[in-house]
């Protein structure tokens, strides 16, 4: 095991025992939300950052995951058993994703990006109008299974860690190489034997599955959803992108850093502004794209690589002298 892995394991262990030391529900809530956004950022990053397929509508998959769980409880499942929604919600999201991917990935250009955006809107309308199934705009409300926040904390920590490990493994395998190749140059990728349509779909399926699971967790944790919350373009779809690019798209650590900052900033502004605090995130998106297109982790990595190059260059020069 290398040093990085030991640090990661130690960090995870520390996170796992944290609720034993700190029982403040507000702190735990913030940590739970942070981990939820780590999960969402990881999921978006796999498809958007690593595979280069930008989705403006991941709320579609989040909402499907949340509603799968919500509808299960509404139709008589106990809130404790509703945790099965984590798997089921993920699978439902992946199912919907496979349809949209099958339609769009044969085409190049912005079709996929816009179709998911449209999908999220259509699903929101369905959730509002199909009252027997979803309770319509009123949403679904139930008393969550656990009273202590620590349980939720451990569950979301486990899912986020799982997503991290899975995505890391994927990115080191053939699949990951194919995702990157497609992002860099689809023509070159295809001429090198890569079935771009198929591998884009694989990336989407993994991404949608984790996003759906995150949606299901949200339902299980908060006990309330409505179509405007879980299918929200601004609060879910765009924020998933923000979390990723803030930390650094196409880096494994990026979404983690992005999620931490997002939750802190979001709490701060929620206190100060009654409404319209999203304006700050809009400005943040603009500033990142113009000034820090690689995000925090990406910029640090580039600086470090630049230093290494300069040092190598200096070494060469001094050797030549």
């Amino acid at each position, binding site marked *: 095991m290398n040093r990085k892995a030991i640090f990661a394991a130690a960090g995870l262990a520390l996170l796992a025992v944290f609720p034993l030391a700190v029982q403040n529900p507000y702190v735990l809530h913030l940590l739970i939300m942070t981990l939820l956004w780590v999960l969402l950022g990881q999921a978006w990053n796999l498809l958007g950052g690593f595979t280069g397929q930008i989705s403006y509508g991941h709320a579609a998959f989040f909402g499907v995951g949340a509603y799968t769980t919500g509808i299960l409880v509404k139709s008589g499942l106990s809130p404790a058993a509703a945790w099965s929604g984590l798997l089921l919600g993920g699978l439902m999201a992946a199912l919907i994703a496979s349809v949209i991917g099958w*339609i769009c990935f044969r*085409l190049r250009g*912005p079709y996929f990006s816009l179709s998911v955006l449209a999908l999220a809107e259509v699903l929101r309308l369905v959730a509002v109008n199909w009252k027997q199934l979803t309770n319509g705009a009123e949403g679904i409300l139930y008393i969550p299974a656990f009273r202590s926040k620590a349980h939720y904390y451990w569950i979301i920590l486990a899912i986020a860690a799982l997503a991290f490990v899975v995505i890391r493994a994927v990115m080191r395998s053939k699949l990951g190489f194919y995702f990157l190749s497609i992002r860099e140059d689809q023509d070159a990728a295809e001429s090198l034997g890569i079935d771009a349509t198929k591998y884009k779909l694989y990336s989407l399926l993994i991404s949608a599955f984790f996003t759906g699971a995150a949606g299901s967790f949200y339902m299980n944790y908060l006990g309330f959803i409505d179509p405007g919350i879980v299918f929200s373009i601004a609060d879910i779809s765009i924020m998933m992108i923000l979390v990723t690019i803030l930390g650094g798209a196409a880096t494994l650590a990026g979404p983690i850093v992005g999620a931490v900052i997002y939750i802190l900033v979001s709490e701060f502004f929620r206190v100060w502004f009654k409404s*319209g605090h999203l*304006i700050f995130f*809009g400005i943040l*998106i*603009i500033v990142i*794209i113009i000034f820090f*297109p690689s995000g925090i982790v990406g910029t640090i990595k580039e600086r470090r690589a630049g230093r290494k190059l300069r040092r190598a260059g200096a070494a060469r020069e001094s050797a030549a002298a």
Partner: protein
Amino acid sequence: MSPQLAGQIELLGQVLISGILLGGLYALIGLGMSLIMGVMKIINLAHGELMMVAMYMTYWAFTLWHVDPYVSLLIVCPLMFLLGVAIQKFLITPVMEAESILPQNQVLLTVGIGLVLANLALLLFTANYRSVPVSYASKTIYWDLKLGGQTISLSISYPFLTAFGIAVLLGAALFLFLGMTDLGRMIRATAQDKRAAALMGINTRKITYITFGIGAALVGAAGALLDPVYYLYPQIGGPFTNKAFVITILGGLGNIPGAVLGGLVLGLAESLGSVYVSLGYKDAFGFIIFVLVLIFLPRGLLGKGRAQ
């Protein structure tokens, strides 16, 4: 002819008329988007938010100084043009020339711009629904037809008809501008091949500013025209951005005549769908057509857009 059948025909006629009138406004929205798409090769996801800005301009011009919405076009369009130029010049152009991991970084930028505009409106004007209470808001023109011994009476909303007429004029002006003037030809040349256009001595950067400006002015005009017939609120932009890209894809990316057709199709689809299927799903019909077009006609209804 039975009275029931006449009633059915009357309803259908009514639905078609309102669909076409609405479609004219949608076409105006789509034209701006398609123009931007053609030259910059990006989808402007702040398009609806730009329209929202124009709607508030019109609203305040009316509320503060009693400027009629149709007259305010003369102020709103130039202001929106300037806003568009500024957005392109100070935000989008710098990003187009920068290197980034994510493709379509500029599109993401427009998402950020949209978010800022919508929430700025929310902070400044609150979430309240507002309307422009013009005297002719509910003025209606009746049109009676004799058909098989029955009278079919169609009503046409005066503000919608006026909006449609102005939209047609603006659309025609755009076509003349693109077809007959040097600047218009330069815009088309840049849309066709930016590098070649630059080699021919066209200042393509300036062309992109002007294009975004015109796109913003067109959608701004649509906003002003919508004011007498629609509520306005800070979040109204989102749904219209969605409509705009649906129209653009229906027409074929960057295809200007296609955008007009796309606008009319969307207007008719919403109008027919909300009467004959369900009002709650009104906004979904456009998306359904959108998906059908993606499956069967990925190059748009006219088949001339770029599929790449």
